[in-house]
């Protein structure tokens, strides 16, 4: 069994959600992760906060936030165990992030450590 990273991609990270929306979204995310963990397929995961986010550019210039010219941003990442990329993609389908138009999930197999 391999490990896959499920990366949550937000098309527009600058959209501000209301506290009520945030609460609903948090619960849906926790239920989604709980469902994967209940199948003993959860490895690790973390949300990535937007507060204080920085971008370090090619010329080593630092700008605030992942926004600006880069619109798309990463909201969180979880690592799961799966038999195949298809199975990992099935897990990704349940992620509430996909409820937002333009958002997507990237599924990447994790390189094995030797």
């Amino acid at each position, binding site marked *: 069994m391999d490990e896959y990273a499920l990366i949550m991609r937000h098309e527009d990270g600058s959209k501000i959600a209301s506290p009520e929306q945030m609460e609903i979204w948090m619960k849906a995310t926790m239920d989604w992760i709980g469902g994967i*963990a*209940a199948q*003993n397929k959860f490895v690790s995961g973390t949300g990535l906060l937007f507060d204080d986010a920085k971008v370090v550019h090619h010329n080593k210039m630092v700008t605030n936030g992942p926004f600006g010219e880069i619109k798309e941003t990463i909201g969180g990442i979880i690592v799961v165990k799966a038999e195949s990329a298809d199975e990992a993609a099935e897990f990704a389908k349940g992620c509430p992030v996909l409820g937002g138009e333009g958002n997507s999930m990237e599924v990447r197999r994790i390189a094995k450590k030797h």
Partner: protein
Amino acid sequence: MTRQQLIPHLFRTEYRKIVAVLCKRFGFDQIEIAEDIASDTFLAATQSWSYGGAPPNPVAWLYNAAKNKAKNYLQRESTFEAKVAPQLVGNPVTGYENELDLSPQNISDSQLQMMFAICQPVIPVEAQVGLSLRILCGFGIDEIAEAFLSNKETINKRLFRAKEKLRQEKIKIEFPGLSEIDARLDTVLTTIYLLFSEGYYSVNQNQTLRKDLCLEAMRLCTMLTEHENTNQPQVNALLSLMYFHSSRFDARINRNGELVLYDEQDTSLWNYELMAKGAYYFHKAAAGDRLSKYHLEAGIAWWNTQKADTKEKWENILQLYNSLLQLAYSPVAALNRTYALAKANSREEAIIEAEKLKLVNNQFYFALLGELYTGIDREKAVGNFKAALELAKSPADKQTMQRKIDAL
């Protein structure tokens, strides 16, 4: 207390103290001698007291007898070593001049140090539980055999091998250093929780024995909370969890020894004193910033002491299970999480999630599916309850499943 009750009672409360102090003094190398001396002490009491009656202070009598027996043994040993093995004289042999220290402080220190010495990953967990029962709880081999639904020979062999292993590994009877205490405590807590679960969840029909196992686990955990270095948040969380669970001990088994499902329990049998104790240790567990699985399980256990069947309750339980499963997966947590999901969200959603679990060797998996399908799809409900019935081992579980099928 009659004289017939006195010695068994003292054996329960004092044997483990004497044996821990002796083991600490002699080390694992001579653990059998320590056990023999402790047993001999009670044998001497039985013989002596049956003629002259019990002394005014029986505990002091026992301690004194144990001290003398230890002294005699050490004296004989040192004579042997002085005459037969003079090359050993230079070794740091414990001097027999020093009396065995049976002060409350040394008793409690020795018991805690023994706890750390026994709960070692080098021996299997069943052996850790067995040795704990023998040495820390003073259980007889026959009682341990009954608790494990095994026989005396198997248990004797298991304990013998475990002691051998501890000797080979040169395990010292001492407190772990402060830097490693968290990691070492994890093993100790696992063993204590296993001991509790053995009593709480086993199919054993002997109610008294089951309750004793739970109480012993709680006593060992309490000892850890009474020592500064081991009084950690996760220890308090485990103790709180065991108190919350044990508050339902009398309600969850009926007169015929059958398991009573949570929804069908007579809540007047719930013990509110034990619940309050659980809440007390739960508050103490809130110190610090480490969230252990025991914190999460204690939180779930607390919600389960709340009778009202509210959305809030099930939402909280669901989120606690979501977190628990990320930290420590177990099939039972996965099943309970799915039940909470049905209560907090919807049955339809829970059915979809339940079908993904595929715990096809687990009777409770099918029992849960049967429950979820009840009122939605009669055929599937019956089919799942039948599958659960086929996998059920105990007559009580079989009966419960048959009742569910008949009711459909």
